[in-house]
């Protein structure tokens, strides 16, 4: 019975939060990996693209809340999400037109595009802060929990239980739907196939009559959708703050590289690897161990390997280990 209790604590504090966070990272990393695969540069503006899409969604959410629209137990933000995606897509397409296209035509060195994306990052960051300010914004509404720890304890009679937060359930469901749709699109549709062809071999794709500008435009729209969904889910789960989104860049890149840059499957795997290691390493295991171990050897301290402030160190360590031992990532991305 004690083992069961330990398992419940583990579910509540490690498995559920890490799964939700992993799904958010995976969606973010998918965006980074797609840009890398098709446009062939590391997009430093991705964190701020997420912030921008989320900001548009928040504004529409507030407007909807203002006129009294609500989805009942489900956050209103989901209703505003398509509008947020549209806003982000317009922004990214506009940026591509005004900024990236010039360098693409020049066939500029990828590192120049990285620096250009740094400039774009500054601009997005400035716009987001100008519009909603640098502070924390909450925009979740509806029910906070699908079932709480107490409900669960009442059903099962266990000492410990786990609660399921609405934001976690929505995150996991949405991520599954989005990833399934993305893979269906990439593998089954003509446009998706042309994107993969373009990513594999640009010259060959051009020879077979694929329109590169169309591929790039579709890519930006998908990236905008992924970034906005990831950003809104993260914002619902935690909270929205422009600087946090900028900082997400590190775990997201770590996830994309760990999985193998350019490989969509790898990005998803990488997201979960990073999220689970971050949460397990920064979690204080005291309560789990108290249930799982006999009393004699129960620990005195918190049994926390690293304080939560060092969560970036965890993604960094994993990144370094992968770079040292398997530079192409778990799924053999295209980078060397």
């Amino acid at each position, binding site marked *: 019975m004690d083992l069961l209790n330990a398992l419940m604590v583990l579910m509540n504090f490690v498995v559920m939060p890490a799964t939700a966070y992993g799904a958010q990272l995976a969606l973010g990393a998918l965006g980074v990996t797609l840009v890398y695969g098709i446009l062939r*540069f*590391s997009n*430093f503006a991705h964190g701020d693209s997420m912030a921008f899409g989320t900001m548009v969604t928040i504004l529409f959410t507030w407007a909807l809340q203002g006129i009294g629209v609500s989805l009942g137990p489900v956050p209103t933000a989901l209703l505003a999400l398509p509008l947020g995606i549209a806003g982000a897509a317009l922004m990214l397409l506009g940026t591509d037109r005004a*900024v990236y296209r*010039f360098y693409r035509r020049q066939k500029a060195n*990828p*590192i*120049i595009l*990285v*620096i*250009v994306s*740094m*400039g*774009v*990052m*500054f*601009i*997005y*960051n*400035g*716009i987001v*802060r*100008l*519009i909603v*300010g*640098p502070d924390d914004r909450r925009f979740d509404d509806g029910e906070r929990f699908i079932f709480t720890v107490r409900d669960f304890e009442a059903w099962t009679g266990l000492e410990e239980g786990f609660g399921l937060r609405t934001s976690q359930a929505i995150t996991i469901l949405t991520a599954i739907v989005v990833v399934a749709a993305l893979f269906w699109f990439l593998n089954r549709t003509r446009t998706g196939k042309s994107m993969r062809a373009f990513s594999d071999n640009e010259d060959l794709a051009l020879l077979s009559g694929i329109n590169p500008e169309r591929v790039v435009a579709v890519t930006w729209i998908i990236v905008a959708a992924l970034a906005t969904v990831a950003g809104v889910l993260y914002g619902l789960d935690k909270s929205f703050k422009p600087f946090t989104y*900028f*900082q997400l*860049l*590190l775990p997201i*890149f*770590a996830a994309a*590289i760990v999985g193998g840059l350019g490989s969509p499957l790898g990005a998803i795997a990488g997201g979960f690897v990073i999220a689970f290691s971050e949460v397990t390493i920064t979690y204080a295991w005291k309560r789990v161990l108290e249930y799982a171990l006999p009393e004699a050897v129960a620990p005195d*301290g918190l049994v926390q*390997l690293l*304080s939560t*402030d*060092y969560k*970036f*160190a965890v*993604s*960094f360590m994993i*990144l*370094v280990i992968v*770079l*040292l031992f398997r*530079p192409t990532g778990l799924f053999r991305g295209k*980078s*060397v």
Partner: protein
Amino acid sequence: MSHTLRTTLLFAGTAGLIVLTGLLQSWNSALVILNMGLVSAVMALGVNLQWGFAGLFNVGVMGFVALGGLAAVLVSVEPVGEAWSAGGLRLLAGLVLGAASVVAAVLAWQRMVPGRLRALAVVAILLLGFVIYRAVFDPAVEAVEAVNSSTSGFLGGLGLPILLSWPVGGLLAAGAAWVIGKTALGLRSDYLAIATLGIAEIVVAALKNEDWLARGVKNVIGLPRPVPYEVDLQQSDIFISRAEGFGLDPVTASGLWVKVNYGILFAVVLVIVFVLAQLALNSPWGRMMRAIRDNETAARAMGKDVTRRHLQIFVLGSAVCGLAGAMMTTLDGQLTPASYQPLRFTFLVWVMVIVGGSGSNLGAVLGGFLIWFLWVQVEPMGQLLMSAIAAPLADGSALKAHLLASSAHIRLLTMGLVLLLVLRFSPRGLIPER
């Protein structure tokens, strides 16, 4: 326009902007801009060394700057005897044990026969090392942080003159750069970027959380100065009479004089770093670096050890950033870890290098002054712009308040725009490499 004339005009223009600040706003703000401009120019020289000479993409400037700041504290603050007797040696022993287990793991990896046994041995060494390290280290940290935690609670420094911290800051940064370079150099260029981005976040996280080291977010204030204090100047008769000779009251004059002193110190450093960088650029070593940057494969075919040379210049450039970081903390007189923001300390320095002209040392110096000037002055300009936009709106409307409050963020927007415009229309910068 000849190259020399253009350079002279650009520098004269930037100097003019700073003098204009003095005339229109106050000489005090002009000197503040000048001093931080000098520090920024040193930082830009460091990044230019890495990016301009060798094409290495380092986005962890903030981390190296922060390490320099840490050096200022570690060198100049008086040691806290009580904290040392409470657990200082034990704390050091913990750190040494931690480092030793990492070294042991690396040695095991290099010496043992590849296979499952080796992997197991390395993991075992690391796990065991971690447990021992925590067992020795944690109680010591607790003991040290418990000593007068409201005013001290850290080990303090060595109590040496703060000027000594400048080279030490460079050394600290160089050490960190060596570790990073060993892992990430030789892989594709974006990986170095991500790795440096990560190390910078970790350095700042460590500064914020390791209270025993430099009091974390409680900040270390009142660092000793290499220049006289205003209060002392205001009481010295010679100074008062001289100030009156210039027609200044002693309070203003003392503030100005202190800043001028800092300016002279910084200018000396800038000149030394600049001359060294310039000599390096024109030496055979500099030519080799540029050859590697322009065509790595060809340089490798000529027998150059590209990875080693990259490591060398990466360490050098980071050391310059660390030096600048120590200078900055000396100027501030305090270490405030929460003030290290990547947009300000990493990406702004990049804007300086790109706008000035990558690969050109003069360009980096110019970029340092010019972009710093803009960074400071865009905010009041944004304020003006925003009040102009918001003027027709009714007083007290939420939109007006919001517009006025957000003028500070115009800065980021402007910097991004400047960077993109220069990259697009003058990709080689204001003073191009020759």
